[in-house]
């Protein structure tokens, strides 16, 4: 049997609430510490205890760490999902199971390993009866370690980290790992091809989840006020703020430079944050889709009242109950159009935990510069799972507090200023904060209906002027939001646009499309709305552009259609959302389903008569030199593979 080294998936099927996350994180961290690129994703139901839950780990020497749909190694601990777990193993795969599950083994095409988990745990007198189930999870870690050569020292390191150096739980859990390891060594014969071998590809990297990264980034951004309300999957972001603020912003006098308030609901959470932002604090909230719905009225007000505030939306499937613990990119359209009346949102789209940190601090700079809400759209997969990352980088620019007038500034101006006066021609006025003692400092804030000096007015032309200034401000924002990241490939003929947590799946799909289908692609990961000039340039460049996203209706695609109607026919939607983190498989299959052979090639095959409306439109848009060039390239690359 050919060995398969550092290129497989491990999936553990357990019951929710059974305490398996320690064991699963231990596997993930051990592989990471062995220097092998790895990812881990918790696929959990919405309940406290009882329903089946899976944890899936992708080990890949080449760094492709998106979720792998093919399950190579499956560990079955839950009788309720046993039959399904057994059926899910790929032919030639490996199946480990707790041997107290007395269900038929119906597969002969896989390696099967029963594990006497209960007996092994019972045999350790140091494990209290109450802890047997919890510690039992560590037995499969040990069995797996023996069977695939997972490094026991790295396992110990992972446990030491997890239990924050507390010796008693470390010992108890590590002993269970060792017992599993020894039992497997003595009793199991290796019948599967999967092995781990140490590498050096994770050197210098860290592991973190996006919510913690976002919280830490916010702290380095100088967050001063947080109003929040618990909601999965955003809760751990606010909790990470609570946990880390006292440490990172510790002062000698023991006093605080920040306040975190758990509100009574999301309306109040954003209301408080808007109040704080209005009064001059770096202010934020974190929520998910349903919470964002409740925040809508305040988000609209903040846009009109020109109040800086940062709103994190860790996206999930919604509304109500059903799949609230599943990931999604379903809030993009909603966030884009949030509020009532005409509004534009600034949206930041981090693609990994590193960017969660970076956008954590950057969002405040943009919000205070533009004086408007800034949304950061993460998702459950990025927010709650552990990801490999470059170490977080200290903010490379000083804080941008935007245009603010204090007493001395007002003295210089002799009190002559207008809150909404576009003095600099960028649409952004100067603001003052409550507490300013200059007698001319104050102004009255309301939604619509004010002139440049914040005086009440319902005059038509004054309203129009204000609306046009708000639009100008949004144009100004393009200079401040992060530009997209482009992954190019020599000879690419197709453009891919995606955003957020799908990056790993898209990069892997790009590789598969090139090597298996001869389709070369360039991939632009959009990192913000409004779209910057780089997005315009990218869209102009290709004849077909696949817009990949995790939702049903192709929300990014819709927004692109609105912003670039002239390129509509070549923008194709590859949208898919089933609650599972993105995989290369669905990205690849989605692109293949929408892919059209370049027109030049089609003409050769004398099917010109059958040119569809879409194709006709494509040919119309091919006016730029860049487009012609890419067609020529397409001809050559497609030829080699097609015939």
């Amino acid at each position, binding site marked *: 049997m050919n060995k398969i080294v550092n290129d497989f998936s491990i999936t553990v099927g357990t019951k929710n609430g059974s305490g398996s996350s320690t064991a699963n994180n231990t596997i993930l961290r051990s592989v990471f510490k062995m220097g092998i690129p790895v990812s881990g994703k918790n696929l959990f139901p919405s309940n406290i205890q009882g329903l089946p839950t899976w944890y899936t780990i992708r080990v890949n020497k080449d760094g492709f760490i998106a979720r792998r749909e093919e399950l190579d190694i499956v560990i079955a601990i839950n009788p309720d999902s046993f039959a399904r777990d057994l059926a899910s193993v790929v032919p030639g795969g490996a199946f480990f199971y707790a041997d107290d599950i007395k269900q038929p083994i119906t597969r002969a095409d896989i390696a099967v390993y029963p594990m006497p988990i209960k007996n092994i745990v019972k045999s350790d007198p140091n494990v209290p009866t109450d802890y047997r189930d919890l510690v039992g999870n560590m037995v499969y870690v040990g069995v797996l370690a023996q069977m695939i050569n997972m490094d026991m020292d790295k396992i110990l390191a992972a446990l030491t980290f997890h239990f924050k150096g507390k010796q008693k739980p470390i010992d108890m859990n590590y002993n269970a790992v060792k017992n599993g390891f020894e039992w497997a060594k003595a009793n199991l014969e290796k019948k599967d091809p999967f092995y781990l071998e140490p590498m050096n590809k994770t050197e210098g990297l860290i592991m973190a989840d996006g919510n913690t990264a976002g919280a830490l980034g916010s702290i380095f951004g100088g967050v001063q006020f947080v109003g929040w309300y618990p909601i999965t999957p955003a809760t751990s972001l606010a909790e990470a703020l609570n946990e880390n603020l006292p440490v990172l*912003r510790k002062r000698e006098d023991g006093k605080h*430079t920040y306040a975190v*308030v758990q509100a009574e609901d999301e309306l109040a959470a954003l209301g408080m944050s808007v109040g704080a932002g209005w009064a001059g604090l770096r202010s934020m909230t974190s929520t998910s889709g349903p919470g964002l719905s409740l925040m809508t009225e305040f988000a609209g007000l903040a846009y009109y009242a020109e109040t800086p505030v940062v709103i994190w939306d860790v996206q999930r499937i919604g509304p109500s109950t059903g799949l609230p613990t599943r990931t999604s990119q379903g809030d993009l359209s909603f966030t884009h159009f949030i509020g009532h009346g005409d509004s534009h949102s600034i949206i930041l789209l981090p693609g990994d935990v590193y960017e969660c940190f970076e956008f954590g601090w950057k969002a405040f700079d943009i919000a205070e510069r533009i004086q408007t809400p800034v949304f950061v759209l993460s998702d459950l997969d990025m927010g709650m799972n552990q990801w490999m990352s470059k170490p977080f980088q200290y903010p490379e620019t000083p804080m941008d507090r935007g245009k603010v007038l204090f007493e001395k500034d007002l003295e210089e101006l002799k009190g002559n200023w207008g809150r909404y006066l576009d003095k600099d021609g960028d649409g952004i006025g100067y603001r003052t904060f*409550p507490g300013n*003692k200059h007698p001319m400092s104050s102004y009255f804030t309301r939604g619509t209906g004010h002139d440049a000096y914040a005086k009440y007015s319902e005059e038509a032309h004054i309203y129009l002027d204000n609306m046009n200034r708000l639009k100008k401000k949004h144009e100004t924002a393009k200079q401040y939001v992060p530009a997209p990241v482009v992954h190019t490939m020599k000879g690419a003929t197709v453009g891919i646009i995606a955003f957020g947590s799908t990056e790993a799946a898209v990069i892997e799909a790009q590789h598969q499309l090139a090597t298996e289908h001869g389709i070369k692609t360039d991939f632009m990961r959009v990192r913000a709305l409004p779209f910057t000039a780089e997005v315009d340039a990218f869209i102009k460049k290709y004849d077909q552009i696949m817009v990949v996203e995790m939702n049903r209706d192709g929300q990014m695609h819709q927004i692109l259609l609105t912003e670039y109607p002239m390129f509509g026919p070549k923008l194709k939607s590859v949208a898919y959302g089933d609650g599972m983190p993105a995989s290369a498989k669905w990205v690849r299959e989605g692109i293949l389903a929408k892919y059209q052979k370049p027109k030049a090639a089609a003409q050769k095959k004398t099917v010109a008569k059958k040119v569809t409306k879409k194709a006709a439109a494509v040919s119309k848009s091919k006016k730029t030199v860049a487009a012609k060039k890419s067609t020529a390239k397409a001809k050559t690359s497609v030829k080699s593979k097609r015939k």
Partner: protein
Amino acid sequence: MTEALPMAGTPSNTNTAGLTKNDYRGNPSTLCQGCGHNSISNQIVTALYEMNIVPEDVVKFSGIGCSSKSPTYFLNRSFGFNSLHGRMPSIATGALFADQYLKGIGVSGDGDSASIGMGQFKHVMRRNPNMLYIVENNGVYGLTKGQFSATAEKGLQLKKQGENPYMPVDICMEALVSNATFIARSFAGNPKQVKELLKAALAHNGIAVLDIISPCVTFNNQENAFHSYTWGKDHEEPLHEISYIAPRNEIILEREMEDGEVREVTLHDGSTVILKNLEKSYDPSNRYEAMRVMEDAQRNNWLITGLLYVDTTKPNLTSMYNLVDTPLNRLTEADLRPDRSMIDKVNALMF
């Protein structure tokens, strides 16, 4: 303490902050002529002027409704935020963290606080921010021209609405059960009491709820209606005659008081509220008593006015957070961004 009385040569219409009453005024009112809300706005101007509070030390907040429009009719020199219907408490809560030395004045109505904003109303009570929370209570929606509010009494008849079938919400009772630290009720037709209660409420270091029955002259002023002038005048039952005394004038008032007839409540700023009992001895620091007099009033159809409850021992919201001495909105990057060395520590904390 230094003498803060007006200096010789200062015009007599100037207070010890060096300001005239004009410095406390706002824009002309656009509410109905004779509206109780206008009278309340005037009393706010007078109370602040007489207390020598500088307008820049006050921030105004409101939601939506007739009452919520009134912050533009007083204190032009103060910052103000006219926010969303029923959401004034959350805006105020966040804003007051920016400078813990500021005093909030929130103006709301019965629709804004007892209907759409009931949740925020009750939660802001338990948080105890340093703000005066006025409910201009008329039992009706004025801005949308005459619908029932949650404080309207059962059986009230309104044009276009018919008869109100529901029991009313009692603002003061709700405030009490939500652990508000200062609860008072007054009647817009009794400007002297309104002013004295405003002063006491402004001196309170925490949330001070002032439920002011403020009849709607246009949409709810039938003689038999609970929130009408006629009914209010006939059924008003003042708990105490109340006088607010600024600390510097304490000596003068002490001479006026007779032994045994006064109840003193010392407020956080050192000022004192002195309550004069009318018919019965009433202890406003006693929650049981507050509950009892409100229940009694309800049963007897009385409009009980005066200081119903006060607790000066509870810390206000910002003081619970142990904030730095400098107002948070004056802090700079040096205070807010962790030192460069901390990034390595953070990365080391990750796995």
